[in-house]
């Protein structure tokens, strides 16, 4: 399964995220107030809906040429081109991105893990059956990670550069990893993070990708947007992938 890479081997030890816990449909288009994490009731939901509406306008201008993804509970938003396939929660479960027994264990034990996952693909439902991240169609993954308190103490900007996928682990397993561009720091309000791009080649396949990952001041949450596919696919679609990565918006309330 292509996601096996993202389901353990690509996440470095100590930042394990094979265990995925998603409380609600992680890939639904922005549905304000679903989680009620920052309040509940009509007022909170209405306010969040307004924020989402403003964001939708800000992200999309006046056109409707995009599909908006994210989770208002985590303040996480991005968009992909209209017509892209968006994996539903059952599909994510089938691909073991969410809902695994290990995810429940990780949540119980408070390990570093994804608490939100979404997946979109430039293709159809049939295209998710092949090699996903090394395939011939651009794939976008949106993640929110909860960082274990102990890991948070040791989280640096450098940590973010290889947090997901885990480059050190890939290298130790014989993969060749090359930078597409030098890592860049990203500072947005109270958030800090990195933007990276890599070509990764291994006997299992090759992959080109770029991503933005940002974390909050306590370093206990990471918002990450990944876009990539096989190296040849990436080279053909790098501009489109880059534009999608640019759409990441994180609303952090401290």
């Amino acid at each position, binding site marked *: 399964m292509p996601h096996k890479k993202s389901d353990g081997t690509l996440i470095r030890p100590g930042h394990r995220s094979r265990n995925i816990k998603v409380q609600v449909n992680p890939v639904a288009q922005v549905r304000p107030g679903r989680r009620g994490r920052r309040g509940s009731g009509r007022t909170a939901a209405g306010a969040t809906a307004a924020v989402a509406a403003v964001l939708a306008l800000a992200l999309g201008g006046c056109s409707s040429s995009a599909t908006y993804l994210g989770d208002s509970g985590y303040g996480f938003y991005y968009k992909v081109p209209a017509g892209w396939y968006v994996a539903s929660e059952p599909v994510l479960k089938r691909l073991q991105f969410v809902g695994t027994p290990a995810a429940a264990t990780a949540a119980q034990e408070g390990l570093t893990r994804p608490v939100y996952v979404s997946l979109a693909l430039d293709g159809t439902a049939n295209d998710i059956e092949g090699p996903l991240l090394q395939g011939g169609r651009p794939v976008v993954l949106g993640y929110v990670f909860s960082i274990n308190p102990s890991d948070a103490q040791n989280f640096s900007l450098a940590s973010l550069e290889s947090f997901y996928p885990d480059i050190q682990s890939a290298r130790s397993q014989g993969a060749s990893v090359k930078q597409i561009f030098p890592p860049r*720091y990203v500072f947005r309000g109270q958030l800090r993070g990195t933007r990276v791009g890599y070509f990764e080649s291994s006997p299992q396949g090759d992959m080109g990708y770029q991503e933005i990952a940002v974390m909050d*001041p306590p370093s206990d949450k990471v918002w990450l947007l990944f876009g990539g596919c096989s190296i040849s696919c990436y080279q053909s679609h790098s501009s489109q992938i880059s534009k999608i990565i640019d759409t990441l918006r994180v609303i952090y309330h401290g």
Partner: protein
Amino acid sequence: MAERVRGPLRRRRGRFASVPGSLAVVATLAAMVSGCASGQAVSDSAQQVFFQVPSGWRIYNQVQMGNNIPGLAQSKLYFFRAASANPRPSPSDVFTPSPYPWLLVEVRSLAPSEQSQMTLEGLSNVLLPNDTLASYGQGGALIGVPRPLFKGSLRGSEVSFQYPFSPGDPLDYRQVTWVDNRTDKVWAFMIGCSVTCYENDESQIGRIASNFYVEDKG
């Protein structure tokens, strides 16, 4: 409290005289850090740092400290002050198991490699490379539970260590360190003395440490 304000703050008051807003900020902060206790308020608003030194303590700047702290004279710092409570003070009191408390405050930039690698835990190594020293068996031992600190875009930590200054003669210190969101600037405060002194004066040391204030400018 105004008559007690002297030294660095008095020099800076002149600079702020034509800026009522800044003056008000400084006055407010001076009041905040001084509370009801007597002391010398020290500040550098450009470096967003404010703290209070008890009256009677002798304050030193970077030049006056010379090389009493190895490498200090050559360091390019945004801000530096040290102080000693010793009745017969000397710059050499600082960072020793002195029977009288001392403190030091430093504001500096982080090199690109530090910016990349800095973690919350790593903030405790900003003044003294405890982790490196520990790898040689010379590191300090925690004498309190480290406390993470968060304020707006700033993050930081408060730690207390016992450091083996010389065989059989350790010193205890408390360190408060803040770093900005870009992770390219740190504010560090350290206060300490001999183990006996630290135990006897811990409440005063805690009060002085709690007065170390770094302004969050986002």
